Structures are given as structure tokens and as C-alpha cells.
């Protein structure tokens, strides 16, 4: 393995060194700084999105309308979903990709550093626009409504009947889309062009593989979303009738387009998680990842299948029988490659020599809780039963299991795993343990009872509900507040790391095998790494 670049002196690059102040962040083309920006941004969005969720849970704690108006409630469910999906989870993974992909493949930086800067700096503006609509609704004169049609913004509720702020929403989604596409292109180009000599495709860490596949999904489907919101825009302002039945259009077309984006989007949010967990488990089991090749193939099959299952979100719209059957079978099929991944993680742990540091705890919790969400997903695939589950809290439980105790837990695992490399200090163990156990217990109190109220028939996006759902909703709300407060512990952990307070981290604090290139550079990782590419055996 080559020496690292801490003592690197290249006169041409001197002016790039040690930029400071505001300019360092505004004009950054450094993958590590941009990664850091992404990660802080996504955490801020996670807290804002969480706050919106707590308004929802405060209203639903007891039956009856107590806290907010049903109109404002709908705005909360909408903006909570949008902020969490586009503001918290996706940018967090892009942040991880920015930081880790160059380090993992021995590249000096991302391939397109200026575009990298742009793709980040679009986001704060996009979300300022989106969130400004909520602020206007809460505090503005006359409380003009923020987007209130759910994060799935089904037409015609979002077109003919959408509030004026729908245009803010459309602009903001366009900007997020541009940012995501550029981020994805950057990952693809970096992985194809900047691998260190000897780093063949089948030697890449799984995190890189899953991100490469995710990036292709993003490039394929974000333009579809852009198309959907553009059609909304022209329906609203330029007299077209794509989605208006009165003008000869088709409201169901909207759902087909949206979910053709939306289902791959679901995998965009979970495939990088698979990569994170596949990187962490082998290190703490002290055993090579089981079935590396089948992991790669499984990821690719999940990605391909994601293009032919979109209509399982729409079983109740009245598709022809043949279409319904096709989408049911394809959806059931997805459980095969997903199962392979879970079995592989299990086999990696099997007869290993495991220790349970914080990243491993989060990773194991991910495997178990994500599997819970996956299994309820298989239940949802069975169409006749889905007619009962569809649009009830059972669905809410399902996708929060895969997105919160799935994607978010894996991001937490990644953060605890790589924080020593990012900051040079170990994350605080006591706070970390508290954060983990508190999150683990509260997330289940929060989302498990949703299965029960869903099966009993409580529809989702309800501002008020019948009395038989009252007891469970109370406990769900308690779980929600507990989970929300638990995340503030992580804020403290992250700030302590950023202030370099804590035990100093060695270059390879987790005893990772030397094939994992990111641990061969010092902690914290110097501003420039791998200016001379390492040679992979």
C-alpha cells in the first residue's frame, strides 16, 4: 500500500490548501468539505422534518382536533415527507458518497468537483423555497396554504385544487432533481474513471457498488419526476389538461408517471444502506463479507426489478386484471434478491468473532428492523390483501420501518463508523450508547403499533380518527416524541466530534482489513488524499 499524502507538496496545488472562512465552504471543490456540507445539511433537514412529524403526532395523540387545523395537518404530512425524502435521506447518502467513494477507490477527489459544489449549493435554496411556504402558512397574513396534497402530490388535488404555493413546490422539486442528477453523474464518472490501478470493478467495496447502481437509478428516474412536475405546471398555468379528466386528460396517468419515478426512488434510498451495512458488518465480525459477487448481482437485480413494479402502489386505481397480476408477481419477486442480501449478512456474522461497537449495533439493528419492513412489504405485495392494507397505517408502518429503522439507522451506523475518519476523534461512547438504545426502543414504540391500527382499518393522512384507534395512537405519539428527543443526543455527539472534543482516533480505529483503503489514510483524513494513487494488489 502506498504512503498517504499528508506530507504532500505540489506547488501547483498550493493555493488550494487550507482555504478558510466562508469561502472555504461556498466555493469548495473538495469532496470532503462538500461531503461535510451535505451531511450537516441533511441532519438539519432531518431535525426540521422531525419537527413537522411531531406536529402530526401532537394532533393525533388524542381523538378530536386539538392543536392544528386539518388543513395545516395536511401541510405537515406533505412537507414532512418531502423534507425527509429529498432533504434528509438522499443528501445524507450523497454526503457519504462524497466523503467515502474517493477514499474507498483511491481517487484524489470526485471527478467533477465544480459540479459537485453546484449540486450541493442548489439544495439550501430549494429547501428555503419549500419551507418558506410552511412559514407563510404558519405565520403569514391569512395563512396561505403550503403544499397540502401529500408528498405523492396526486393530481388533480395538486393541480386543479392545489394552493398557490404549489408553484413554489414545483420549482423546489425541479431544483432538487437537478441537484440529484448532477450528484449521480458525478458518482458514475468518478467510479468509472478514477479507480486506483488494480481496483477492478469486482474489488470495489460494496458501498461503492451500491452507490454506482443507485446513481444509475437516479439518472434514469429524476427526469421522470421533473416531467411530472412540469406537466403539473402547464396544467396549472398554461391550459394543458394532462391530468384533468374534464379536459380529456387522465388523473391515473399522473400516478403512473409519479410511481415510475417513485418506486426506483424507494431503492435509491435503501441501496446505499445495503452498501454501508455490507461495509460495517465484516469489519466487526472480523470475517470477509459472505457472497460478495451475489451481493453485487442482488443489488443490480433489485435495481432492474424496481422499474417494473411501480403500479403496486396503485392496486386500487382499477387496473385491468392482467396488469394487476403482472405487478403482483414482479413485486413478490423482489423479495428474492432482498432475501439473498439478508442471508448474506447473516452468513457473514455466522461463526465470526464479533464485537459490538456502536457502528455494529446500528448495523445489526438495521438488518433486523429493515427485514421487518421487508416482510410487511411482502404482505403488501399480495394484491387482494393489499386492497385492505392500502392507504392505511399498515403502509405507514411498512415504509417507516424501511426508511427510519432502515435507511436512517444505516446512516447513523455510517456516521458512527466514519466519524473518527472525518473528525479525527472517536464519537462519545456514553452518549452514543444512549442514542442507540433510546432510538432502538422508541422507534419500535413509534412504528410497531401502526401495524395494528392499520390492520384495524385506520386510513393514513387522517387528522382525526374513530375512537377504537385512540389507545394505540397515544402510544405512537409517545414513541414519536421519545424518538425525536433521542436524535438530539446525536446532535451533541456530532458537535463534540466537530469541535475535536474526545478521544483521539488512530488511522484505523476499528481494525478494518487493509483492503479498506479509507482506513489507510490518517485520521482526520487530510484535505487531499491519494494524490498519488495507491496500487491495489
Amino acid at each position: 500500500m502506498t504512503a498517504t499524502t499528508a506530507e504532500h507538496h505540489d506547488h501547483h496545488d498550493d493555493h488550494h490548501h487550507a482555504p478558510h472562512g466562508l469561502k472555504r465552504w461556498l466555493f469548495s471543490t473538495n469532496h470532503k468539505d462538500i461531503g461535510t456540507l451535505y451531511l450537516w445539511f441533511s441532519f438539519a433537514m432531518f431535525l426540521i422534518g422531525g419537527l413537522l412529524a411531531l406536529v402530526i403526532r401532537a394532533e393525533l395523540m388524542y381523538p378530536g382536533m386539538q392543536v392544528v387545523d386539518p388543513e395545516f395537518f395536511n401541510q405537515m404530512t406533505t412537507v414532512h415527507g418531502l423534507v425527509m425524502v429529498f432533504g434528509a435521506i438522499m443528501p445524507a447518502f450523497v454526503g457519504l458518497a462524497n466523503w467515502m467513494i474517493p477514499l474507498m477507490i483511491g481517487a484524489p477527489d470526485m471527478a467533477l468537483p465544480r459540479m459537485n459544489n453546484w449540486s450541493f449549493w442548489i439544495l439550501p435554496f430549494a429547501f428555503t423555497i419549500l419551507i418558506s411556504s410552511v412559514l407563510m402558512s404558519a405565520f403569514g397574513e391569512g395563512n396561505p396554504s403550503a403544499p397540502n396534497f401529500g408528498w405523492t402530490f396526486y393530481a388533480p388535488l395538486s393541480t386543479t385544487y392545489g394552493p398557490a404555493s404549489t408553484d413554489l413546490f414545483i420549482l423546489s422539486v425541479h431544483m432538487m432533481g437537478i441537484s440529484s442528477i448532477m450528484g449521480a453523474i458525478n458518482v458514475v464518472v468518478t467510479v468509472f474513471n478514477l479507480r486506483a490501478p488494480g481496483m477492478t470493478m469486482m474489488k470495489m467495496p460494496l458501498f461503492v457498488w451500491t452507490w454506482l447502481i443507485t446513481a444509475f437509478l437516479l439518472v434514469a428516474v429524476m427526469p421522470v419526476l421533473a416531467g411530472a412536475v412540469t406537466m403539473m405546471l402547464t396544467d396549472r398555468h398554461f391550459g394543458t389538461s394532462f391530468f384533468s379528466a374534464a379536459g380529456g386528460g387522465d388523473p391515473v396517468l399522473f400516478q403512473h408517471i409519479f410511481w415510475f419515478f417513485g418506486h426506483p426512488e424507494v431503492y435509491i434510498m435503501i441501496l446505499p444502506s445495503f452498501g454501508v451495512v455490507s461495509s460495517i458488518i465484516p469489519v466487526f465480525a472480523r470475517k470477509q463479507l459472505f457472497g460478495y459477487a451475489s451481493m453485487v448481482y442482488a443489488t443490480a437485480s433489485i435495481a432492474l426489478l424496481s422499474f417494473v413494479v411501480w403500479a403496486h402502489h396503485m392496486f386500487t386505481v382499477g387496473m385491468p386484471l392482467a396488469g394487476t397480476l403482472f405487478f403482483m408477481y414482479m413485486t413478490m419477486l423482489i423479495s428474492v434478491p432482498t432475501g439473498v442480501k439478508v442471508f448474506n449478512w447473516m452468513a457473514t456474522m455466522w461463526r465470526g468473532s464479533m464485537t459490538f461497537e456502536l457502528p455494529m449495533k446500528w448495523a445489526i439493528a438495521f438488518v433486523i428492523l429493515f427485514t421487518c419492513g421487508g416482510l410487511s412489504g411482502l404482505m403488501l405485495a399480495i394484491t387482494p390483501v393489499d386492497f385492505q392494507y392500502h392507504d392505511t397505517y399498515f403502509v405507514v408502518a411498512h415504509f417507516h420501518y424501511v426508511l427510519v429503522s432502515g435507511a436512517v439507522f444505516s446512516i447513523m451506523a455510517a456516521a458512527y463508523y466514519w466519524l473518527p475518519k472525518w473528525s479525527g476523534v472517536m464519537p462519545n461512547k456514553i452518549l452514543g450508547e444512549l442514542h442507540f438504545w433510546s432510538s432502538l426502543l422508541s422507534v419500535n414504540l413509534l412504528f410497531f403499533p401502526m401495524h395494528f391500527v392499520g390492520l384495524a382499518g385506520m386510513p393514513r393522512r387522517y387528522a382525526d380518527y374513530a375512537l377504537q384507534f385512540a389507545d394505540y395512537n397515544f402510544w405512537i405519539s409517545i414513541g414519536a416524541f421519545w424518538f425525536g428527543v433521542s436524535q438530539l443526543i446525536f446532535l451533541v455527539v456530532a458537535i463534540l466530534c466537530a469541535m475535536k472534543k474526545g478521544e483521539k482516533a488512530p488511522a484505523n480505529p476499528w481494525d478494518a482489513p487493509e483492503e479498506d483503503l479509507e482506513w489507510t489514510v490518517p485520521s482526520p483524513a487530510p484535505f487531499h488524499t491519494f494524490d498519488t494513487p495507491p496500487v491495489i494488489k
Partner: protein
Amino acid sequence: MQSTLFRRVSAALSLLMFSGFAVASDWAERSDHNLRQGVTQVSQEVYDLHMIILWIVSAIGLAVFGLIMYSVFAHRRSKRPKAADFHEHVLLEVVWTIIPFFILIAMAIPATRVLINLDDTSASELTVKVTGYRWKWSYEYLSYKDDNDVGVFFFSNLKTPADQFNTPALEGGLFPYGTAAENYGKESPEKDYNYMLEADKALVVPSGVKVRFLVTADDVIHSFYVPDFGFKKDAIPGFVNEIWTNIPEGQEGTYYGQCAELCGKNHAFMPIEVKVVTQDEFATWLADEKEKAASGPDLTPFASLDDAMKLGEQKYAASCALCHGANGEGGIGPTFVGSEMATQAEHREDHIHVLVNGRNAMPSFKAQLTPKDIAAVITYERNAWGNNTGDLIQPADVAK
């Protein structure tokens, strides 16, 4: 040594699993929090499918979690300082790819059978057209047995009064239900047993007859969902979806459902109430409704302003308050308190016209309310909340 440990643990795990199954199946039988079995043959089949898939995923889940937890305890570093070295096993990988396939096929066959049955709306004896509006349903009886021109049509609104769900806590545009100080210590109002579920006029269907519903919507997408009949179908403007049910004789009673597709502010406030009666009772009910429909609107004038106000107050609460506020203060729709429309004489005809024919986001009410109701509502709006115009609108004013 290792094999004995393994045997013991696997015996313990399987024991745990089987006792878990026993407890769980007992729970599934008794609980209100499992999927509802419902009352029709289809809902029972759906419930059975649900239970099969629930057992399958529970078994898979227990096996996977059991193995992981076993591994966590038995394969930790303090027990096994040196990890094993394997990282591939082709046979194993093929096996755990193939076996799920067979499980899926076993699952897909009954699911397909039920789905084909659900899709078959032929040979129905009663056809009802269901239309979703923001935020109510209407039911139009199209044909029953040999009668292809039933012509019974009515709207169905939430019956729960607003003072039961507007439980005060906070105030402001954001917090519309009064200040915390004002409401501190106030009892929240008593809620009816069927809070949020009851409608002012129920959909009535006979038992023992295959009923076909034609489901559509007038504005945005809604979803017609009655859990006990095992169906949910989206109501989409411009589309007519079909769904059927057949409630067996002996299962007469009242069943509740709710709108299941986000349709705006009062999505949670448009319940579905279905009254299932015997075929004889249904025939009587239908004949009554037909007679009412045939006799034409009641145009007898109001004897006094108070009569009109009394009826108007009821109708306003049921049909107008969701948008215009319980006290006419406005909301989605404009306010009436002191407004030009509701107070000035020259707007009187226009006021009637808007209610009858609709304008912009305001829907037309001529199908939902009788001329007498409309006259009462206009009278109420022009005299309540300090408007005091003294106008008395008569049904005949509306009918012309």
C-alpha cells in the same frame, strides 16, 4: 461439544418458536387489532390469505432473527477469538435463492384465485353508483333486479357534530381552537360511540344479493373503503371503477368505512355508513324512496322566519360549515359575517344563484339540497351572526 450446544440452542429456539406460534394464533383469533375478518365470503378469503402470509413472514422473520441473535451470542469475540474463514458457499446461495421462489409460488396461487374472483362483477342484481365529493359521498341506485330505472339518489354527510371534534387547545390561524388559557381545564366534549364514522343518511343494501358498485368522483380522487366487505376502490374523476360485494343473509346490520385517498382538508370527515337489511325490508325502503323522488320537491312556503331559520341552521351545519366555518367566519370559502353577498339586497338573487349552480371552487348544491333546504340556508345566512337582514327566502324563489 459444539454440536451439543447447537442442538440445545436449536431445540430451545424451536420450542420458543412453537410457543410463540401458539400465543400468536390465540391473539390473532381474539384481537381487534388484527385484520378484520369482515362479513362476506370475499373478506373471509382475504383474511385467510392475510393469515397465511402473516404466518409465512413471521416464520421467516423468527428464523432469521433467531439465527442472528444466536450468532450474536455464540459468535462474539469473547467466545470465539478467531473468526472462521469461509465467505462463499455456492450450494447454500443457490438454495436460499430457490426456496423463496417456491414459497412465493405457493403464495401467488391462492392470491391469484381470490383476485380473479374479486374482479368478476358479472351477474349482479343491484347496481349503485357511488360518487365521491369533497367531502361527502352520493349514492345513486341504478338498477335492482328487473327494474332498470330505479332513480333513487341522495347525498351522505358526516353526522358527528363539529363540537365533538373541535376540541379546544390553542388559538390563532395556525391553532384555530381557542387559547390554551381559555380552554385550560375544560372537559373535552363527550364523543359518540361511532364518532367520525356515522353518516346522516346511510347507503342501504339488501343481504344475499350480489351488489355492484360503480365508483367515481366529481372533483379529486377519493377511495371507497369498507373493511368489513374486504374492498377498497379509488373514486377517480373521469373514470368509473367497478367493485362488488355480497353480504350473506343473517349478517344484516350497520357497517362503517371511510375515505382512503387524501382528498384535501376534510379527508378524515367523509365516512361511509352502509346499512344491510333483508331483501323484504330493502324492497319497502326502495319503494318509499322512489315515491319521495317521484312526488317532486316540497314547495310549501315557510310560515315564519323562525321556521326557515331553524331548518337553515341544521342544513348549514351539515353542508356549509366545513368550508364557511361553523359561525360563518369563513375558511376555505368566504365569510358571511357582514359580507356584501349576505347582507345587501341587490346580491340576494346572486346569493341564491351561487348556492344553486356553484361558482369557482364552490360546488353546485341543486342535487344535494331541496329548494326548501336552499331557501332555508340562504335565509339563515342572511339573518344569523348579526346579519339580520330580515330576508325570508321562500322555496318558490329558489325553484324559479
